[in-house]
């Protein structure tokens, strides 16, 4: 019985597989050894003319050879493929140390992000945002806040006025919003008022004619000095971190009594002032038409100061020059 030499065929197959250089050649080999016109197919055609015993036996031989080749082919194909992609990746080796993508600057101004953060901290405990005009009346900026007309803060050397009678001015503090808000809303009041304020200073490293404050005001039944303390301790810890310590020292503001300044313990053990606060002075309640027994507290934070402390920014001027080299760092 004429039978093919299966070992010889398989050896020839192995030889061809070993010489493959491109993935497509596996398909050619598959065709050559297993396809319609392959030797194995030719031999299969002969089976029908064989005796049953020979047919079964030879059929099995051919089937085994075919399986052997097919399995080996797939195995080789997979390993060739995996080797091929590994090599491809090895050859694609960019110098990742180069920064081709430049940060041009597309973000919030650092003062805005500090203001947003403070607003978020207070809105989480039920404070809403209130606003008021930047060009204000002297009454709202001073008189209503218990600062009489002979007070030094009212001198033209400190305050920017809009008219020669000194009746209108650019607000020197966001505390004006307290007054505006209370004139138009009944207690309870829980507000924060972020915004611009103005002083008669030239723009330099430590001064700016424009800067930002966030005023806070809470008026509600039974609010005490302990509530003020707890509120500002909460704020400091939310903003600077739980490990930061605070202390309260007595201070003076015309529109609060008692008044305090809040200091935070900074890295090197230094204590830094970050805000002023106090219980709203009864005269302020009277000026806005609230009941004289009203109770509440107010506080004011300097936005530039918060940013300067947190990021160690050295010049206040940087905030207003808008150099992208500065803006894109935050």
């Amino acid at each position, binding site marked *: 019985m004429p039978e093919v030499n299966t070992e010889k065929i398989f050896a020839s197959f192995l030889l061809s597989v070993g010489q493959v250089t491109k993935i497509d050649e596996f398909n050619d080999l598959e065709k050559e050894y297993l396809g319609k016109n392959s030797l194995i197919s030719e031999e299969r055609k002969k089976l029908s003319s064989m005796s049953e015993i020979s047919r079964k036996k030879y059929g099995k031989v051919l089937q085994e050879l075919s399986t052997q080749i097919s399995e080996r082919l797939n195995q080789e194909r997979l390993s060739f493929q995996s080797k091929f992609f590994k090599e491809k990746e090895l050859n694609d080796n960019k110098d990742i140390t180069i920064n081709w993508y430049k940060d041009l600057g597309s973000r919030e*101004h650092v003062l805005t992000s500090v203001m947003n953060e403070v607003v*978020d901290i207070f809105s989480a405990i*039920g404070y809403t945002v209130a606003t008021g*005009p930047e060009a204000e009346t002297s009454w709202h900026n001073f008189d209503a806040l218990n600062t009489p007309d*002979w007070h030094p803060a009212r001198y033209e050397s400190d305050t*920017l006025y809009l008219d020669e009678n000194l009746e209108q001015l650019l607000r020197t503090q966001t505390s004006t919003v307290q007054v505006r808000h209370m004139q138009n809303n009944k207690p309870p009041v829980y507000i924060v008022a972020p915004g611009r304020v103005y002083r008669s200073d030239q*723009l330099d490293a430590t001064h700016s004619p424009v800067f930002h404050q966030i005023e806070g005001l809470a008026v509600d039944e039974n609010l005490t000095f*302990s509530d003020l303390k707890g509120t500002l301790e909460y704020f400091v810890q939310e903003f600077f971190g739980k490990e930061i310590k605070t202390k*309260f020292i007595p201070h003076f503001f015309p529109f609060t009594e008692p008044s305090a300044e809040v200091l935070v313990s900074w890295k090197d053990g230094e204590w830094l002032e970050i805000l002023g606060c106090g219980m709203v002075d009864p005269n302020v309640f009277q000026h806005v038409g609230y009941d004289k027994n009203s109770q509440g507290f107010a506080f004011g934070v300097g936005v530039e100061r918060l940013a300067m402390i947190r990021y160690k920014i050295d010049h206040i001027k940087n905030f207003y020059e808008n150099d992208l080299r500065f803006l894109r760092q935050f």
Partner: protein
Amino acid sequence: MKVLKSWLNDWIDISEISNEDISEGLESLGFEIEEQSDLKPNYSNIVVGKVLEIYPHPNADKVRVTKTDVGSKTYEIVCGAWNFDVGAVVPVALPNSEIKDGFKIDKRDIRGVESNGMICSASELDLWDDHEGILILDDNILPGTDFSSIYASSDYLWDIGITPNRGDCMSYLGIARELSNYFDKKINIKKSKLNPSITNILNTNSGKIKECDSYGSVEIENFKVTDSSFLIRYRLSNVGTRIINNVVDITNYILYDVGQPLHAFDRDKLFNTVSVRKAKNNETVTTLDSQIRKLTNDDLVITDGDKPIALAGVMGGLETEVTDSTVNLLIESAYFDKVSIMKTSRKLGLISDASIRFERGIDFNIQKYGLEQFLMTLKNSQDIKYSELSIDTKNNIKNEKVNLKKDEIKKLLGIELKDSFIKKTLKNLMIDGEIKKDIIEFTAPSWRYDLDRPVDLIEEFAKHYGFNNFSSNLPQGLYKNEKGNFWKVKEYLSKILISNNFQEIQTLSFVNKEMNTVFNPEKKYVTVFNAIDKSNNYLRSNLMSSLLDTYIFNLQQNNILNSYFEINTVFNSSVDNTFNDVPNQNVVLGFITSANLTTQDIRKSDQSIDIYYVKSLINQLINNTQLEPIIKPGFHQNYSFSIFKNNEIVGHFGQLSTELQNNFELENEVFLGEIYVNKLNLNELKLINYQPLSQYPFIKFDLSFSVPVEFSAHLIVDEIKKLLSKNENEIEIFDDFQHENSRNLGIRIVTRSYEKTYDDNETRQILMKISDSLEAKFKITLNSGNND
């Protein structure tokens, strides 16, 4: 104010208390510690010497040679100062010693004479600035004495801030009073024991005005102008006061010590009754600094007869000044009205140690004590004769009795105070008060101007209880995480711009006139009356000028073409919409971008955009808007649009006029816009009209129409949308080709029925319906050919 530990110790025994504890005490009482320092002598190995002989230097005219006894030895020392004679007791820096700033002194040959050290001035030992020459010490100090043993060689100095309501703490006595309660230690009131031996030859009185409540004076004879004592010079120099002579130094010393400003006149230059009155308008007085001061009816003057001789409480007059030849004095100790002194001092720009104390309010009952302490100090060093004190008081100032309900304390502070604490605090602070059942009845002492309401005493208790001893509680408002529409709109718009690579900026609100007129020539501007920079005295009427400035600045500075936005207030002089007592103010979002933008990838060239990009940006920022062309100053004739939402103008945008682009020397076209933040409502901005998705296959046609050059393309799109309004559609212009007077618009229509799959016949009918309607309605023609 500068506080020297050794000086404070005169009033309250703090010698055993650590500097840290004192600092903590000061701070908890509301004295902010601005600086503090350990004082150590800035010299070493200085001894006291006595000059035995003085003779000329053989080779130099400007110096002399001395023989100086330094105890163990007598040295030959060359000296360049001439303010001493044989017998003078002086500080000597021996060879191998150090003077100020570590400067080493050794034997030195000075033009052929060996000098064994140096005779020192006060400034060479870093004691105080002295231009008189060598420091002359008391005659009775023995040669050889270690100099540091006669000079308080180590001390501690605090520089503390005093809040404007506490004028009473601008003296050592005042600070001691506060600390006495903190440390629970008694204060030592310095006693006065006087023995007047002359009669007054001048009359003095407080005049007829209410602004001077008390005028006290004393006359002194047999006085000699000389240096003040070593102790006074040491203390004054350390609190930053210039050393002048005994009379000036002692008046300054009393001012710091007890808080009463004093003024010394040369009595022999006064002839009539000394009194106080308001100045006449345009009256003048020449002050100590030789300036002629023109006065008004608001100013207070001291008069000799009717003649003004000093600016009360602010500065003395030149004519009655104490000079080296003065032998008789009149010392003034008065109480002047706070506001009056403040006005004069600010108006004339004359701020002195005296004026700042008067303007914050001095003790109205301390005029006599001030004079007594002056005399006690002066007679200690000179054998003077003095008169009885003359004090003319109107007694117009009185502190009223105030009642504080005890439960008010708990209500405001949240703590219950024990009666023992209340009593102790009142007593130590010398507040006249007592507890009567539920009420504390109190009267402020004569030095306190901040204790006239019940709440003032509550503050005092809180402070002395210690702010840091209060418990903490966190009250909360009703509306959590409800920032309000304005703030939320601001955050919403910012986020969109930032995700489109815009950088937010914050620019100053002041501009020059040009920056307003360029975009708003029609507006009435708001100006600053006392502007810092006279050329930038306008409040801005728009944000576009500031945005352009920043765009140009960063292009020049950093070579980056970027996009920017700012959200801030703009002003005009009409009345504000919300508040009718102030100028009109609106919060505006302004933005700027350019036709070429630097790309992030450095390897790539600039990215270009045009007005269509800006239009798409507006649609991202505000949904459902309509645009209408508008002619606006500063903008391109054709590319300037108002943005309407719900038939209301909510902003505008466009291209910077080509003329301005040329004037600003800008290579690229620039696009600018403003959005009126207050006109937007967040809920409307977030409103979404959801289109359900059809489950059926789409049909698609690309149509080309020949249209007039002036035609508005959106008309076709709108019309097709109307025709296919029952379907889910995507209708886009994909081509706009213009050549001379012909123009072709390419429109792509993708449409899906919600009900069925269109067959070929239905598809053809839809196409016919669209082309027929468009041709009929707009008189345009469907181009044959590549439509499918």
